[in-house]
Every structure is written in C-alpha cells, then in structure tokens.
C-alpha cells in the first residue's frame, strides 16, 4: 500500500486516494478541428513508461483535490507530489 503525499493534507495511505491516469494530457481546445487520428491520439494513447511516470491522483477520501504525482513504475518510488498548475517542482 503506497504512502502518498497529498499537497494539502500530507502523507496518507493509498486507500484514501483514487488514481486518475497519466497527467499532463490537455484536452484539445477545438476538438471539431481535429482529425480522427488526432482525436484518437488524445483519447487513447498514453506513454506508459518504464520508470518515472507523471500521474494524476485524487484525495478522494480527504480534501477531494486532484494533484500530480511522479511515481516510478518499476520501483514504485514516489519522488514528488505537486499542486496542479504549479508546474513540476524542483
């Protein structure tokens, strides 16, 4: 069970959080202007890296805030969590 740091509430057990998939994916401003392939790329394609992964997590049982987490998909090491919009810290 991971220990995840909520940028507001501090370190909490994984059971308080829900996972929101890969972070940093921006919804296209004008979807109508995208080709099917471009839309499919936004919709379905993810980087799925071996190593550092930018993720979205929601402190669902806590303050209900969404935030960013950088987690290593091999070692499970969480190197940082950050408020969205603050950009990537460090």
């Amino acid at each position, binding site marked *: *069970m991971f220990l995840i740091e909520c940028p*507001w509430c*501090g370190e*909490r057990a994984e*059971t*308080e959080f829900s996972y929101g998939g890969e972070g940093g994916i921006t919804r296209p401003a004008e979807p109508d202007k995208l080709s099917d392939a471009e839309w499919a790329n936004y919709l379905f394609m993810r980087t799925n890296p071996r190593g550092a992964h930018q993720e979205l997590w929601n402190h669902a*049982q*806590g*303050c209900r*805030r969404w935030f960013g987490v950088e987690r290593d998909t091999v070692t499970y090491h969480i190197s940082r969590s950050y408020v969205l919009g603050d950009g990537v810290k460090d």
Partner: protein
Amino acid sequence: MTEWHEKRHGLEQRIADWTSRTGFTISVRDDLGHLNLRGDLGSPGFLAAAEETIGQPLPQAPNTISDGDSTIFWLGPDEWLILTPAEKAANLADQLESSLSNQHAATNNVSGGQIALTLTGERVREVLAKGCALDFHPQVFTEGRCAQSGLARANVTIGSIGGDNKFLVIVRRSFADYLLAWLDGVA
C-alpha cells in the same frame, strides 16, 4: 429533528450495553447541526464576512479545527464543516448565504445528511486504529487536529476535540448503522 433519533433507540440501547462492557463510550450527537461551507480564501472579503457571520475564525491550516461556539473543521483548501447547535444551524446557513451573496461561495445545510458521534475512553485511539490508517498517537493526533479518512469502509471526518482521548467522528447518515455495528464489533 427528533423523529429519526427516536427511531434509532434500539441502536442506542445497544451502544449503552457495550459501553458498560468495554469502558469505551460513544454517543450520538443529535444536538449538533452541520453546515458545509465552500469559499475562496484568495477572494477579498470572503474570510472576513464568513468569520464575522460565524463569530470565530475559519481554520486555514490543513487538518485543524477551530473551536468556539461552533466547531469548524478544515476539509480542504476551500471547504469547511461547521458543527453548531442544531437549533441554530438553519439560521446560520441563511446568514452565511446572505453575507456571502456577493462572493463565489456555497453554503449547504447538511444536518440531515450527517451523523456526529463522540467517542471517548482510554481505548478510543486503539479502536480508531483498527479501522483507520491515520496515526492516532497522542503526540501526533493532538487535540485540535482533524482529518478526513476511512474508518472501516466508511468515509469519515475525525477530529480530536475537548480532551485527550475524545474524538468527534462525522459520518454520512446512510453509513451510520454500518459504522456503529463495526464499532460494536471491534470495541
């Protein structure tokens, strides 16, 4: 307010039975009303208007409680839970609505949707630890701290208030039966 609680009489009898057995005390706090307040601390005037209306500070530090005539829990960077005497809750909700009417804010009276329980006794921290992954060490979960978390399989707001081994646990009404049954089991 009373009808529901009269209907829970059997449950309270059960609570009384196991209280005497285990030295772990629990009471249903039907004397408290519950307000949920949302607002933007960065918005000029919000904090002043809210605090003046409530008559006490809003806790701004995460996981803390402001105690006074009301007990205010920090729930998130823009969200608070105000526990206030039940008979005053509706009034306070109306006052907040009007004093914050020119703000981006939201007040919801959720007195009917939540149940507050007071848990006391020497074993209270141990009992909580059986269902919650938070650290309840007396030097960690000190008086005036609060947190939202899971207790058994219910979402709860937990605060240490009014004494060393005294906790308020707030749970959604629909989960109250389950949570009391669980407390009965583990305590």
